[in-house]
């Protein structure tokens, strides 16, 4: 089998049609200056538009079962483990398409067929479903789409691979800037925490431009409610099929790679606490994408699209009426009673980004914080003007030149270029445990906080391993041997030190009831079905008590240090 795949790959590489893409790429050479532009990328059929090829094109290389001695792939092992497909086999994303054909999918189909007045309606033929469940681009033809039955697969996140599948395993590919990789070849830079968050949130929050929108009609038909998402927690529980830049150890062209793929950084990203940085950026991007969805929905061309109830907080309306009512006792802040509210959870972690940008400069922080609050207040003001708000004003406040989305974009990119070390992680943790009660009015907001604390605390409590550096004039064989040795170091550290630190943190959260009551562990992987857990998770969401959480957070602030090494 390995021989077959290798052969097939070679055929593509050297085939006449494929030559142009390769030739364009090879023009780079190891010493070619980085600014030189790539000739127009083409695939073997001469197309310059990136196409989805399906999981099959990735399996030959990214499958551990091919063994370590495959000469074609081992050089790449320096950069990536090549077991990604076998890890992905247990990833819930793999079920995404199949779920449409499951019990819940069929039940939704029945209700939606009735709703739409189309007895022939099929969820598997509905672009609104396939946009997320098979990452179908909005303008594509379902019948022609090659990647359908694989659900959410490699290309869903990494981008359509027809133009980059050929060149991407050559080490020289690392020298091309992330921007070019995406614009010319269609490869999405998921190593950049900003871009990665955007990519994950396009489905997990929604994105009108990409046709990824869960509507209230879908929810009413039975789609499970989208939970709040903390990017690192979701990534860890997928589980991850990658290593961070630091965890990779040294690889060929690393310095060039860093220069071209981490634009704007004045420090080495190798010194960053990558997960902490991702938590902070993810916290900012969650609000960014929520507001983007909100504003895009508000001015969508289809007059039926607004107000789309699904972008409002479910539990603001969906609650049994208590007598006496604690909501009325609590009040509605500055809002008028009786108006649909935006979700709270996307706001939960924004303070981390603002704090990170300001560092220890309290005056700068306060100025930033006030600016942020001013923009949120402005958004709420136009939202309160009437139920569901004034769509045009929402669009202006959110998407204007000086709008909330632009402001959050700037914040995310400022955090991206800032160094995030242990001191920053410490400040982040301090910020998290001292967040005021208005930050966690509901289950999802509270869970964002605890998820962030868990990730940051685990990372800050684990010292990074020492990887063997490349020696001068190292041969290819020596490089491969070093890469394999570093992989072992990584695996030992991952299952040893890091797992131990994570376990300590988890034990603390379990002692405090947080793990269970906030359901910190997701029904991730292919063993669990989200729909089957809904009876319990909806109860937990409905039973959340902010007072209880306030006590837990205070306790966590006191005991947090006890788990450090």
């Amino acid at each position: 089998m390995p021989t077959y795949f290798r052969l097939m790959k070679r055929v593509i590489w050297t085939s006449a049609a494929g030559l142009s893409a390769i030739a364009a790429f090879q023009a780079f050479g190891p010493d070619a200056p980085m600014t030189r532009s790539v000739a127009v990328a083409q695939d073997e059929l001469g197309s310059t538009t990136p196409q989805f090829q399906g999981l099959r094109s990735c399996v030959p290389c990214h499958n551990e079962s091919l063994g370590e001695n495959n000469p074609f792939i081992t050089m790449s092992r320096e950069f990536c483990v090549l077991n990604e497909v076998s890890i992905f086999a247990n990833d819930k994303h793999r079920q995404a398409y199949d779920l449409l054909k499951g019990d819940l999918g069929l039940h939704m189909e029945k209700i939606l067929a009735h709703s739409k007045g189309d007895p022939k309606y099929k969820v598997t033929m509905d672009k609104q479903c396939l946009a997320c469940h098979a990452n179908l681009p909005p303008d594509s033809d379902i019948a022609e789409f090659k990647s359908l039955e694989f659900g959410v697969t490699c290309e869903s996140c990494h981008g359509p691979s027809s133009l980059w599948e050929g060149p991407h395993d050559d080490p020289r590919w690392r020298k091309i800037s992330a921007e070019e990789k995406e614009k010319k070849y269609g490869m999405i830079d998921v190593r950049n925490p900003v871009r990665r968050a955007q990519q994950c949130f396009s489905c997990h929050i929604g994105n009108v431009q990409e046709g990824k929108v869960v509507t209230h009609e879908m929810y009413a038909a039975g789609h499970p409610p989208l939970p709040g998402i903390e990017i690192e927690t979701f990534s860890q529980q997928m589980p991850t099929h990658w290593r961070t830049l630091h965890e990779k150890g040294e690889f060929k062209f690393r310095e060039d790679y860093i220069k071209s793929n981490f634009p704007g950084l004045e420090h080495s990203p190798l010194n960053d606490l990558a997960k902490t940085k991702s938590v902070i950026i993810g916290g900012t991007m969650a609000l960014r994408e929520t507001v983007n969805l909100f504003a895009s929905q508000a001015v969508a061309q289809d007059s039926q699209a607004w107000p789309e109830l699904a972008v409002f907080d479910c539990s603001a309306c969906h609650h049994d009426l208590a007598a006496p009512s604690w909501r009325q006792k609590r009040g509605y802040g500055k809002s008028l009673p009786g108006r649909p509210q935006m979700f709270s959870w996307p706001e939960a972690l924004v303070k981390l980004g603002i704090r990170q940008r300001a560092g220890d400069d309290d005056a700068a922080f306060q100025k930033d914080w006030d600016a942020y609050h001013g923009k949120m207040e402005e958004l709420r003001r136009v939202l309160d003007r009437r139920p569901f708000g004034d769509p045009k004003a929402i669009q202006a406040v959110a998407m204007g030149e000086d709008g909330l989305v632009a402001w959050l974009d700037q914040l995310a990119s400022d955090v991206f270029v800032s160094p995030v070390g242990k001191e920053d992680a410490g400040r982040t943790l301090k910020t998290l445990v001292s967040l005021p009660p208005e930050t966690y009015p509901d289950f999802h907001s509270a869970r964002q906080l605890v998820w962030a604390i868990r990730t940051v605390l685990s990372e800050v409590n684990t010292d990074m391993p020492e990887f063997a550096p490349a020696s001068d004039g190292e041969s290819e064989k020596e490089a491969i041997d070093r890469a394999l040795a570093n992989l072992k170091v990584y695996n030992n550290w991952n299952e040893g030190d890091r797992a131990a630190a994570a376990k300590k943190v988890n034990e603390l959260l379990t002692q405090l009831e947080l793990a269970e009551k906030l359901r910190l562990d997701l029904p991730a992987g292919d063993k669990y079905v989200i729909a089957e857990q809904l009876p319990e998770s909806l109860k937990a969401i409905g039973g959340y008590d902010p007072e209880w959480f306030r006590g837990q957070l205070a306790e966590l602030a006191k005991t947090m240090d006890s788990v450090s090494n």
Partner: protein
Amino acid sequence: MHWKLTFRVLFTATAIAGVVVSTRTSSGVEPAEANRVALRSVAEGATADGTSLANLGHKFVGVGGCSAANCHGGDGTKGTVGSEYSIWIQDDKHAEAYSVLYNETSQRMAKLLRLDKPAHQAALCLNCHAPQNDPPFSGDHAHASLSALLDGVSCEACHGAASDWLGPHVRHDWAKKSPEEKAALGFRETKNLWNRSKVCADCHVGEAGRDVNHDLYAAGHPRLFFEMSAFHANMPAHWDRNDDRGRTGPDRDKSSFEAKLWAIGQLASAEAALDLLVHRAENTRDDLVLRDQDAKYPSGETVAVWPEFAETGCFACHHNLDSPSWRQKRGYASRNAGGYPWGTWLFPILPTVVNSSGTSDLASADSPLSKLTREMARPYPNRKALVSNARDLQAILTKSATSLDSQQLTADQIAGWMKGVSAVGTSASQQSWDGATQSWLSLTAIHQGLSDVSGTSVQPSEKSQQINASLEKIRTHLEFSEGFDSPENFSADPATAISAELQKIHDVLE
């Protein structure tokens, strides 16, 4: 809680109303057709020649003008003519309407709404809780004395501002005055059941200036859930109920009053609700910005907002999300999944009443009711489109009421309503608690009417007993649990049990 109490009181009151045996000579005859038209005009706020009543400047004189011992302040028991004021002040909750504006809920409501005045001074509240003039409301209660306000909903709130009829109505020629003449003096006729229902609906359903919308509900106002026959039976009567019984036919011992009141009450309540809907649709203000700490909500009148959630069944949204979901399992009938169920309280039984009068088929897909329901199911209903449908439907309801009012109801006709309601209720109960409760209230009232007409009120027939048993079973499924103001337990099982009882009632009548 107070709900349970209401239901219990209501149930017994309706039953008792039927067994009261007349001891007085009936003076009741049906108002002549001409009178009805005139009275209808009064309800619309215009005299027969079209002059607006608002400009005539009738003033409230206060209960002091009525309560003299020789007039309406006698010491008779309930239903005694001459003791109207005494009965009202002792037993009627309307007399407490103003004082509740000082309680914790009212104060909190004013705070949450950021009213520019406390509840007991805000016209927004006082227009119902202590009206001082007839509509349209000036919004100004500053001139009102505390003693006038303290009377809450008093005589003139229902009978009209008395400044110009107080004197004339005690003179010998009052009885000879035409309804037009009385109306011109500001007097509101309440003997006609349509007018009476509309008087109640002014506040209990709402109208311009008396709009309990979702803003007010979220601030803490209890839900309005008006059903004429139930509320009528619950109100401590300061009039002789036997007079009412005599007005629906020559034999007041076999009176169809309860059934007729129910039917006309259904029509009038829905008609009032449509008026309010049109008011809301036409008066929406998008400009009211309340984000600033200092911005106050004008206390003169409820600010109309669109969409108005109070038009939609409360419990369609207000339920905890659960899984498995009985709603999803049940499906959404003719509504789109996730769409708004409009008019779940006042409209589910309406087609049964209207269709029986033969004037129109409201159940058909192109009836104004169906069109309105479809438009209102959208998250942002088109205000222009619905106004004409609402007006068409109002015309149908008025016509049905006129036709019904002139009819002598027969036992067969009333039994037909019962069968119709129990059949509609079987499916309405599957859709919502509102549908189930409205069916139950309606059947309770119609059954009373049927028993009266059939002469089985005092000694219920076997069929009657079976129906009562079913109604009692249904009631237990409708109660809210302790600590809740919504039917938190209402799901597949209770809905199915209620449908089964409704089916039994239907079968008993076959």
